[in-house]
């Protein structure tokens, strides 16, 4: 686990690669750490993690009730649109915020143990996936009222979730070190995520033309939602959205690799 050799001049790339290899070899560690995070959040509650599913279901129900009145779409279509959109959104938004805090959250561990840093990044990602899996359960139940017939195209949502997984890992590796160095970034990201909620088609449908359609088209978040929502709701594969998500993931992985490798030696001093 620990670095038994700290040799001056070792390439930051190979050292970073070693970190990730070591971290991936101890899944039990980051799984248990993520589980502890979740337990901390719901400790001494009667319902425990069931709160995640309950609060999500209530949120969606109220949103459908209120905003459904203003929508031209059928209630069933709007309900599924909001359930999937808001479910995916809540994962992405909490993942982005948690990615910023992945190192800061583990400050005591970073200063107290020589665990390779990817453990903390995977811990943050996994913690969000644990929450998301409960939200996915509610989404699966909601699909009982799916307005369109079931076709095999619905399975195309699964690669969408895989794309989410890739994003959750590089987001942590990119944002965690930057937020340790620049604390303002944490607040900037939190603020912009709150704004993003309104300019992303979650509570409103983009339509075919007009300002809203244009806003949705240039917003990468729209495409992230579409790769999961479109196969499930409309039984179709959103090719353009996939191209956008693929590009964002590719750029993200490169940026995250550079950021991780160039900051790993300095995190303990900055934090």
């Amino acid at each position, binding site marked *: 686990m*620990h670095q*038994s050799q700290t040799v001056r001049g070792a390439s930051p790339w190979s050292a970073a690669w070693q970190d990730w290899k070591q971290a991936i070899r101890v899944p039990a*560690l980051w799984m*248990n750490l993520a589980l502890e995070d979740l*337990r901390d959040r719901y*400790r001494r509650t009667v319902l425990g993690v069931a709160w995640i599913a309950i609060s999500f279901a209530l949120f969606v129900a109220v949103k459908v009730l209120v905003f459904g009145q203003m929508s031209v779409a059928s209630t069933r279509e709007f309900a599924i649109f909001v359930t999937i959109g808001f479910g995916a959104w809540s994962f992405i938004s909490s993942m982005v915020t948690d990615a910023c805090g992945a190192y800061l959250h583990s400050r*005591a561990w970073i*200063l*107290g143990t020589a665990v390779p840093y990817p453990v903390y990044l995977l811990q943050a990602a996994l913690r969000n996936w644990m929450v998301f899996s409960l939200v996915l359960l509610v989404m699966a139940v909601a699909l009982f009222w799916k307005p369109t017939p079931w076709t095999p195209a619905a399975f195309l949502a699964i690669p969408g979730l895989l794309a989410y997984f890739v994003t959750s890992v590089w987001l942590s590796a990119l944002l965690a070190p930057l937020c340790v160095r620049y604390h303002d970034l944490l607040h900037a990201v939190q603020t912009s995520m709150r704004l993003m909620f309104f300019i992303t088609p979650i509570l409103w449908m983009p339509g075919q033309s007009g300002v809203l359609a244009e806003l949705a088209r240039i917003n990468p978040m729209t495409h992230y939602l579409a790769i999961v929502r479109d196969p499930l709701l409309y039984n179709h594969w959103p090719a353009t959205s996939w191209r956008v998500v693929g590009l964002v993931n590719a750029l993200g992985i490169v940026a995250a690799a550079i950021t991780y490798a160039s900051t790993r030696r300095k995190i303990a001093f900055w934090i």
Partner: protein
Amino acid sequence: MYLECNGLTVDFPVRKGPKDPFDFESHNLETGGEIIAVDGKPHVRALDDVSFALGAGDRLGLVGHNGSGKSTLLRALCGIYHPSRGSVRSDHDVSGIFNIHLGFRPEASGYRNILLKGLIAGRTHAEIAAAVPGIAEFAGLGPYLHLPMHAYSQGMAMRLAFAITTAFANHILVMDEWIGAGDVNFQDKVVERMNSFFESADICVIASHNNRLLRKITNRCLWLDAGRVRAHGPTEEVLNAYEAEAMSIKLEAARQAALLRPRLEIPATHRALWLAPSGHGGLADGHVLAWDASDYNVSSVRLSVIGDAGNEQMICTGIGRGSKFLGPWLKPGMAFLLRDNVDDAVIGRVVFEG
């Protein structure tokens, strides 16, 4: 088995907020390392060119005043801080205990913390389960292990931290100074566990302000001063030099005090030094040498005995008022002197009548 440092230098970037007042021109050099510029940015040189090599069975004690770099060195040995220059090499993983608040989950139970620490050390679930009874026994926490760690007292958390770390240590162990702070019973257990740890020819580095503990468990010491190695060698040698300096700093303070408040004339009616028989209080039969000159602005004294050949031999040093138990070596006719450390003047004299 080895652990070595070669020219280890660690520079901390000084994180200065846009509004933090920090004057680099008038820094206080009494604690902490030197402030230097690296790439035009201010850094504190926490460790400066530290080199040493430890082999199987070596127990190194780190001494030095607060901010001298002891904790930084321990963290660098563990791989938590990366060297700015130089290197740390070892052929085994280095385990460390720094602070009971670092590397534990306060909300989780003692058992869960044992599991997490075991996983960090690369143990399997089965190995961890096998180690649990031993840890529970050593820590002596019994049913408390089911409670969250934040419910533990400082001492209980310390016991658990120490028990876990030594149980999962991978041959090389580093420990920070708080380990010397437990109760007597715990310290005895620490010494015992450390000694059994050493019998397996492992390496240990321990930072402590408790010189008595260091004398018991270390064979070598390293004295750090502002991030630099001041002395390195056998424990007794280094600790004696370290204590002598602490003494001379105290003496200097006494000298400064004497400039402001010179010693008053001690009247003939005041007994500054006397001998009294002692047979109680758990001490063996003998005599106690007592002195009191504190009312006359004396703050640092030295006691000595005049030997058979007329030579003066120091017994101890102390403050203006105190006492010292004298062993069976006391013989009738021996003369004792009380001297003011500031100017060496004899301010008290007593002869043992028998």
